[in-house]
C-alpha cells in the first residue's frame, strides 16, 4: 500500500501540468497583453502579509478560510487569500496623490481553504485590474468596457449582472450599519419576504414591500426604464431615494449599448455588493455551466483609505482557473501542432544546428 502521506493533498491547493499548464500560461499572457494595451501595468503582491492589517475587512465566514501562520517575532501572518485586499495595502504603501490615476493589473495564485465539497470551485488563481484614483462615470465606464473586451477575448457565453451598492445605501439610509449588513445578506439571497418583515416598521409596510420589489429587479436597460417609471407611481418615498442611482445605471446601460456590448449586460439590483468596502457599481459575471460567478468587480472608493491613501477605486477580478475549461476557440491557446523530432541516431550537434534553423521558422523541435 502506498504511503498515506504521499497520497494526501491539502485543501486549497492544486497542481496542473503540461498542456493544461501551457494553456493557462497562454491565457494569462493574453489577458495581461489586453490589460497592458489599455495602459494597465503589472503588479506582484506578496504571498503573505500581516493578518491584523486585513482583519476588519475580511467578511464574516471568510476569515476561517484564510491560512494563518506565526512568524519568528510572534506576528500573525496570513497567506494571500484575495488579491484585491493585498493590492490595496501595497498601493497604500507606495502610491501618493501625484501618482493618480494609476492603472494596474495582476495574475497570481491565491491560497485559501476550500471544503472538500467545494473543491471543484477552482478558486486558486485570480487575474484582474484596478483603476485607482478615478471616480464616477468615466472610471466606471472604462472598467466596464475593459470587462466587455475581456469577455470578448475569452469568448465565453456569459452575462454581466450589474447592480449598485450606492442604490442600496440610498434606499436603506435610515438603517444602522449592522441592520444594513443583514438586509444586504437578505438581498443577495433574494429573501424579499424577510426584508419586508425587517423594514416594515421603519419604512411602513407598503414602502418596505416596494423597496423589496425594487431589489428583486433583473432586466435589460429598456426594462429598467419601464420599472423606474412604474416605481415613481407606486411610492414617492422609495422613488426619491432611488431615482438618482437608477438614472445613473440607465446612463451606464445606454453607453454600453452605444459601444455595442449592451446585450451582454443585465441590470440586477440584487447585486448590491457582498463586501463591506463596496461603494458604487457592483457586478458579477455568470457563465453557462458554472456554479458561481466567475468574475466579480465594482467600485470601492473607501477601501484604500484603510491603508493610508484616500483614492477612489474600481476594478474586477476573474477566477481564471474556473473559466479556462469554458474558453471559446481554445486552439488559440493550445500547444502548437506538428512538433518535429530529430533523428535519435544523428550526432547531437548536427541535430542541434539543424533544429535551430527549423526553430527560426517558428516551429517546435525536439532534439
Amino acid at each position, binding site marked *: 500500500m502506498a504511503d498515506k502521506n504521499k497520497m494526501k493533498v491539502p485543501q486549497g491547493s492544486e497542481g496542473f501540468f503540461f498542456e493544461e499548464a501551457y494553456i493557462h500560461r497562454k491565457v494569462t499572457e493574453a489577458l495581461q497583453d489586453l490589460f497592458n494595451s489599455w495602459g494597465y501595468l503589472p503588479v506582484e503582491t506578496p504571498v503573505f502579509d500581516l493578518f491584523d492589517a486585513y482583519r476588519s475587512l475580511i467578511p464574516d465566514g471568510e476569515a476561517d478560510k484564510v491560512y494563518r501562520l506565526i512568524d519568528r517575532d510572534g506576528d500573525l501572518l496570513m497567506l494571500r487569500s484575495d488579491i484585491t485586499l493585498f493590492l490595496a495595502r501595497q498601493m497604500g504603501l507606495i502610491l501618493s496623490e501625484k501618482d493618480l490615476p494609476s492603472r494596474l493589473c495582476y495574475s497570481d495564485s491565491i491560497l485559501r481553504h476550500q471544503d472538500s*465539497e*467545494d473543491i*471543484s470551485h477552482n478558486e486558486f488563481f485570480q487575474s484582474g485590474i484596478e483603476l485607482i484614483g478615478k471616480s464616477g462615470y468615466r472610471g466606471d465606464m472604462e472598467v466596464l468596457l475593459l470587462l466587455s473586451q475581456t469577455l470578448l477575448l475569452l469568448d465565453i457565453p456569459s*452575462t454581466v*449582472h450589474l447592480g449598485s451598492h450606492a442604490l442600496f445605501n440610498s434606499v436603506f439610509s435610515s438603517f444602522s450599519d449592522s441592520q444594513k449588513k443583514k438586509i444586504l445578506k437578505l438581498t443577495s*439571497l*433574494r*429573501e424579499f419576504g424577510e426584508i419586508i418583515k425587517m423594514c416594515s416598521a421603519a419604512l411602513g409596510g407598503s414602502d418596505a414591500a416596494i423597496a423589496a420589489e425594487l431589489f428583486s429587479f*433583473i432586466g435589460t436597460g429598456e426594462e429598467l426604464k419601464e420599472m423606474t417609471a412604474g416605481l415613481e407611481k407606486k411610492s414617492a418615498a422609495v422613488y426619491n431615494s432611488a431615482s438618482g442611482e437608477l438614472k445613473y445605471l440607465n446612463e451606464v446601460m445606454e453607453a454600453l449599448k452605444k459601444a455595442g456590448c449592451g446585450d451582454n449586460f443585465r441590470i*440586477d439590483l440584487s447585486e448590491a455588493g457582498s463586501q463591506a468596502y463596496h461603494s458604487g457599481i457592483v457586478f*458579477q459575471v*455568470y457563465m*453557462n*455551466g*458554472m*456554479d*458561481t*460567478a466567475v468574475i466579480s468587480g465594482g467600485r470601492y472608493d473607501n477601501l484604500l483609505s484603510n491603508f493610508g491613501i484616500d483614492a477612489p477605486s474600481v476594478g474586477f477580478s476573474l477566477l481564471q482557473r474556473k473559466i479556462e475549461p469554458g474558453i471559446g476557440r481554445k486552439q488559440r491557446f493550445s500547444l502548437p501542432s506538428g512538433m518535429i523530432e530529430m533523428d535519435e541516431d544523428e550526432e547531437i550537434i548536427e541535430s542541434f544546428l539543424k533544429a535551430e534553423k527549423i526553430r527560426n521558422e517558428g516551429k517546435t523541435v525536439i532534439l
Partner: protein
Amino acid sequence: MTQPLLFALPKGRLMEQSKDLFQSMGIDFSFDNRKLVAADSSGNFRFFLVKNSDLPTYVNHGIAGIGVCGSDVIYESGHDFYKLHTFSYGGTKMCLAGLKGAHNFGNDAALKIATKFTSFTRDYYHKKNKPVQVIKLNGSVELGPVLGLAPYIVDLVETGNTLRANNLEVIRELADIKVHLIVNPAYYKLNYKRINKLVDEIKEGEKSWTPGSQI
C-alpha cells in the same frame, strides 16, 4: 433549442408528492426501471433522483440548478440557495425529545444530545448561550435515550408515533421545518425568466392541486 431546466428531486415521499403536483400542472415524467434520470414529455425539464441529504450538494455545484429540499437538510449542508417557494406539503417539526418524565435540565452541565442534525442542534443551543454536547447518529436516533447513549435527541417529529413506541416524548418544539424550491444562485441568474415563470406556475398549481389526485 432551449436547454431543459435541471431539477433534483429527493428520493421518497417528497419526490412522490412533488411528482403528483407537477403532473397536476402538466409536467409529466417518471423514473423507469430504477433509472435516476428522467425527462418530462415536453423536454423542458430534466429530473435527477438523488438522496435527500445529497441534494444540496448537487444544486450547490450547479449539476442540478433547481431542487426540492427541506429546510433541515439545507441548514445542515451549510450552503446558501435562493428559496423561491415554500411548498404546502412535507412540513414537519424539529423537536427535542427524551424519555418520558425523565428530563431534568441541570443549570450548568452541557446538554448531551444525540442527533442527525448536528449543525442545527449546536447552533440552536449556542444562540441560547447553552453549551451542548452533540453525538452524531445517522439513523434510529430514538435508540439514543433508550440505550443510554444520550438522555436527549433532536429529530424531526411528524406524528410522534415512533417516539411513543419507544417511551419517548417531545420536550420542546425547536423549529418548523418547511420544504422549499431551492435554486443555485448562478443558475438562477442565467435562467431567471424561465425559473420565475415556473415559480409562478407552481404557486398557481398548488392552489388547485388535490394531493394524491395524480397517483
